[in-house]
């Protein structure tokens, strides 16, 4: 009985902790627009990446670490994969299951890039990795095109905490 109670309590803990459950979802541009506008007082961190992009893959652990460290802050991390649709089943999903086990991962397969890159940020030329910190407060928004170092990311998040 005691054992079952413990399992039950552990289960509750997992359910109530917002960042612990993995979420993988295919999304379209309107869904992307929704996460570009976080509710008041919260910050969304969007990392655009792909399994074929070596520097993207190299920096993922930094984001996973940040996500854990800032779990209690009003930050939410979204990993937006720009992988090719044909690679989802064999390559992308297994990769995500292994390397982003507790994260929210969106798969954006719309390859008409010119139609949506400016929606994310007009300054973005389309190279990945690209990281966006978005907030309803424009002074808190940040954009990094290309690789971001652990120090850069953590310093940015610290100033926004």
């Amino acid at each position, binding site marked *: 009985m005691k054992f079952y109670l413990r399992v039950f309590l552990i289960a509750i803990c997992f359910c109530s902790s917002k960042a612990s459950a993995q979420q993988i979802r295919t999304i379209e541009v309107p869904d992307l627009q929704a996460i570009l506008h976080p509710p008041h007082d919260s910050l969304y961190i969007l990392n*655009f990446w792909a399994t*074929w*992009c*070596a*520097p993207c893959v190299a920096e993922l652990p930094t984001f996973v670490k940040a996500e854990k460290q800032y779990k209690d802050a009003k930050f939410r991390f979204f990993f937006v994969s*720009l992988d*090719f*649709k*044909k690679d989802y089943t064999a390559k992308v999903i297994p990769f995500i299951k292994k390397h982003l086990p507790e994260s929210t991962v969106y798969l954006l*397969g719309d*390859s*008409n*890039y*010119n*139609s949506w*890159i*400016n929606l994310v940020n*007009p*300054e*973005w*030329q*389309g*190279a*990945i*990795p690209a990281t966006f910190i978005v907030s309803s407060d424009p002074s808190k928004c940040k954009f990094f*095109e*290309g690789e971001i170092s652990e120090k850069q990311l953590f310093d940015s998040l610290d100033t926004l905490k």
Partner: protein
Amino acid sequence: MKKLMILLFAFAFTFSAQAQVPSVGLKPGDTAIPFKLKNIDGKMVGLNDYANLRGVILIFTCNHCPFSVAYQDRIVALNKKYASLGFPVIAINSNDAEAYPEDSYDNMIIRAAEKKFTFPYLLDDTQVIAKAYGAVRTPHVYLLQHADNGFAVRYVGAIDDNSDDPAAVKIKYVENAITEIMKGKVVSEPFTKAIGCTIKWKK
């Protein structure tokens, strides 16, 4: 070289009015920067060698990037279709081969042979040309049209609107731009964006 550096500085301090167009590098309407780079056959190829032609499809690309790979056949097809109309392709690889050995000069030679490149595939070893043009991704196209003072940039961006599937392409940006230029019209969509690999800068 000195001239180029001055130009580079000038570009670094030029900010464009339109937010979508990068603040550094060449924009549609600008004059193309001349270059002379080593081709896969060991010979030097320069923009000036093309002075008698109507234009050039200049493409920053590389070996390793999956987007460049996805577009390889389409780049070969562009040259096949447009070289005889006066718009041949020149491909340039600016990537740091130390970080990405697949993009080395030797591997460029191999790839060009495998894919039967019928156009120059140049090595931008110092990365000066990519920086001068403002190329950030691969592939990144600069469509140049012959002008009085050299070449004018008429289009900057992607080859078409579907990297994934050539059969599903709806808009062929580069081809449309060439068609408009040949008809004497202004290019109606002179700038597009695409997802791509970053150009791998030397550290």
